[in-house]
């Protein structure tokens, strides 16, 4: 067993534990490489099936290729896709491009949209893979378990996460009152109106993700690769706040070289994400309020 086999086995165990413990389970799919690996691991865990809906929060500022890729994969893999959006903030123009500060924009378009999509307060747009049509769901049941692809090596507050991490009624995270988590036994019991975030990728590094993508030949969105202009994205987000990096890597193999011996050996992955810097170098303030 090599290190990727171990990581894979542990993540599959966690996904199966989540699936058997939470009747209303969903997975967040940001279209990025990490949650796409998580989607692949789901198919591994459940022998080709994806037995829970995938929630995507569409801020309306996503790089357009992301939406195209999302809808193509959804059709190809028969996914139950659920899309949430803060329509009110968008209608009122309460966004960074209209003058709002970055952190408030993240809170409205991502954290709030996520919170009210998960708890069913806001309408969910659902892709029906049987009829091949989009449908609106009103008053949907709250998701009590939510699988998220965060990794401990991304930034400080994520390195302190539990694998099964409780969120209170307000979707908030209190790092100082986390219950213990022992061996491979996780928090699978939860109080009414709370939910649990499940993090199967905590022990994966950015490098592990790319090694696994290469090994499994997972179809990853092309924004991560240089398309001929000497630029590629290392981390995906909204276009006003996410910058591509200078790089000629065209495939997972070349990205792995860049990370192990090349130009990105000692450069943080989220260095192209502006909201981290506005938070004083940590995402903790955002994450307390429900950011992934």
């Amino acid at each position, binding site marked *: 067993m090599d290190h990727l086999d171990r990581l894979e086995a542990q993540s599959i165990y966690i996904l199966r534990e989540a699936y058997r413990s939470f009747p209303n389970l969903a997975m967040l799919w940001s279209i990025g490489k990490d949650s796409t690996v998580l989607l692949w691991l789901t198919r591994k865990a459940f022998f080709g099936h994806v037995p829970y809906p995938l929630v995507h929060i569409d801020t309306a500022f996503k790089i357009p290729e992301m939406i195209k890729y999302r809808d193509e994969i959804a059709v190809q893999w028969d996914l139950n896709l659920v899309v949430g959006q803060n329509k009110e903030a968008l209608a009122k123009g309460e966004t960074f491009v209209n003058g709002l500060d970055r952190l408030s924009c993240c809170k409205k378009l991502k954290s709030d949209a996520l919170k009210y999509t998960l708890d069913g307060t806001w309408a969910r747009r659902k892709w029906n893979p049987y009829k091949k049509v989009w449908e609106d769901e009103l008053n949907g049941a709250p998701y009590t378990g939510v699988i998220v692809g965060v990794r401990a090596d991304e930034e400080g507050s994520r390195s302190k996460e539990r694998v099964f991490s409780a969120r209170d009624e307000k979707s908030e995270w209190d790092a100082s009152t986390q219950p213990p988590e*022992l061996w491979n036994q996780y*928090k699978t*019991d939860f109080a009414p109106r709370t939910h649990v975030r499940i993090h199967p990728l905590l022990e994966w590094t950015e490098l592990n993700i790319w090694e696994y993508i290469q090994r499994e030949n997972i179809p990853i969105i092309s924004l991560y690769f240089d398309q001929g202009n000497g630029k590629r994205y290392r981390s995906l987000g909204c276009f006003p706040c996410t910058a591509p990096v200078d790089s000629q890597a065209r495939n997972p193999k070349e990205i792995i070289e860049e990370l192990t011996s090349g130009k990105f050996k000692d450069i943080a992955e989220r260095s192209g994400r502006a909201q981290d810097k506005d938070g004083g170098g940590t995402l903790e303030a955002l994450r307390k309020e429900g950011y992934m």
Partner: protein
Amino acid sequence: MQRLNIVITGHVDHGKSTLIGRLLADTDSLPQGKLESVKKMCENNARPFEYAFLLDALADEQKQGITIDSARVFFQSKKREYIIIDAPGHIEFLKNMISGASRAEAALLLIDAKEGVAENSKRHGMLLSLLGIKQVAIVVNKMDLVNFSEIAFTKLKVEYSEYLATLGIKSDIFIPISAREGVNLIEHSASTPWYQGPTVLEILDSFKSVEEKENDDFRMPLQDVYKFTRDNDDRRIYAGTVTSGELNVGDEVVFYPSLKRSRVASIESFNTEVKTSVKESVAVGFTLETQIYVRNGDVVARADQSAPKVSNRFEANLFWLGAKPLELDKPYKIKIGSAQSTIYLEEIKRVIDGDTLDRADEPSVGRHEAACVIFRVHDLLAMELFAENQKLGRFVIVDEYDIAGGGIITEVLDQYTTRRTKALHVNDILVDKASTSAEFEEELFALLRKHFPHQFT
């Protein structure tokens, strides 16, 4: 590259985060700009720079200067990759220390040379032994504060060795260091000419990865049974993670405690070559030649190998982290392997506190205490002694919604009978009802299978 999980434990302020911060800085394991940005932040706030700030990323921790939760830090030596778990030393955050330590294969235990052996130095030593971590090195930090005195070091070594011996831990690895000054972390220092033993990095590289044992009998806690009907998939797949041994297509398997049997028809997987055999640590799924009804949590073994132990009573060493004490005869939930059941504390044999003063005749086990206890379980469970099979010999106790304690099984006791149970406690009336409903469930399943056979093929 191989990876090893290491936990760093010890009393509050004995310098765990400083040690890790310094190791990261001295081995060039920090992302570019991190050291500079933390130094700049200190400058802006008119505070002296400390290596611990590199780790204590949570805003609250920087304000208070203590570690609240176990951070995972990725770190690489020439030999392999490490996840270093920085466990909090403050008693308030013991649950976080244990959560971190339970993921580790080896441990460093830090003791402050000046302050000496403190309450949590002892408690952490005891918990490491309860968690089953056998590779432990003791790091005596802040040697600069005692002028790198060999006498001070030796005195501390003798004192703590005696304590460890009472726990049955034999560790002869003691390293004198100064994390702040980088003494004996990567290279030997001229400050301690009397010390010729290994440096911290050499010790880390000498720890062994917990190895898979080839000869153990096959065990797999049944995590779930899947029947996904989509795309006309008619497989009924028995899924779980192999905890030991090997399973092959054609092997006869027995489920415990239900004693149902069948033969493995196929081993299932997605995006791999067809498999005919699986080994320890793999998350697998298999189909059977006959369709049998078994519960999640049953332990699967091979008919040609040994059986796991089955009982509803056992003796255990336990540590308790719940806000409310662990009480006699109150229903709790046990999780062991993939099984869950209701559990009652039958007897507290003794309570062991941080200073190893054993106390008998206690009415309950309080927060942060360890104890030797007897539990009885509502259902029969398949289990093992921790000393023989760690993964099936350890369990957690859930109080309300949270894990409140963990333990290891030291002795499997004779089953209690229903008759005896009835005489004992009111609670057990619930138990009897529950077991009746389990039987009902099984009968219902048999009827469904008889009358709607197409659903079960």
